[in-house]
């Protein structure tokens, strides 16, 4: 089981993701648009896809805003 974390519009949530094989960054962005029912397909065009392994080896994917700045 892969977990996808999406941060968007002042909210952040984990959602389960059933995938067979590798998921490309473009797939992650498209899936997030479909999950949230957003009208614009390019909503996450400037977002970053981060991939990590959790403590039990599970895959976690983060779809997050860029952090070029320190504020």
């Amino acid at each position: 089981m892969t977990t996808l974390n999406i941060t968007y519009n002042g909210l952040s949530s984990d959602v389960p993701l059933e995938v067979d094989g590798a998921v490309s960054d473009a797939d992650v962005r498209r899936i997030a648009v479909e999950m949230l029912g957003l009208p614009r397909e390019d909503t996450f065009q400037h977002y970053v896809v981060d991939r990590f392994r959790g403590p039990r080896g599970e895959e976690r994917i983060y779809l997050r805003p860029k952090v070029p700045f320190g504020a």
Partner: protein
Amino acid sequence: MRILFCGVGAVGSTAAVLCRNLEATLVFIDFDRVESRNLLAQAFVKPSVGRNKAEALKLQLLNLYGVKSEAVGVRLTRDNVEALCQGADLLVDCFDNQASRLVLSAFARAAGKPLVHGALAADGTFGLVRWEERFVPDAEDSPGQATCEGGEHLPLIGQLAATLARAVQDFVKHGARRDALVGLAAVTPTTA
């Protein structure tokens, strides 16, 4: 131990204040001055308006907490990075632009200095703490795009700064180099 906070705006100033308990010399590098609008998101107080940020933070730590620190009120550049950072045992990157991050990153790699980055999304919805060996700066969509001005993002700034300060403390006490993702819902460690 000598810890250099490079950039003491919102993240840097708040994280530095949370490192005041360490048995270390804290050094602040920042060329900018405190403005009134900074007071809602950064760890500065009204009497510091107009002062250099590094100097202002040094005075606040001394006057409010009795903690001695050092201030360097200049812009970090390729020309001075070696002179300013050579004596550091730990570098903490809290800059607000990619160019300065890259200057610091290049120096740290060449000199073999430990470097931890703290960064916050411009919309105040996401933050990262990541050590140099795993850090890749995100590309800027447009040079000079807006940063987190005003106080509306202060809770997440505080959460990120606290996570960064914890990373610094873990390094000082245990030599650990822990990364974290700081979101609106949770702080998630991303390395053991």
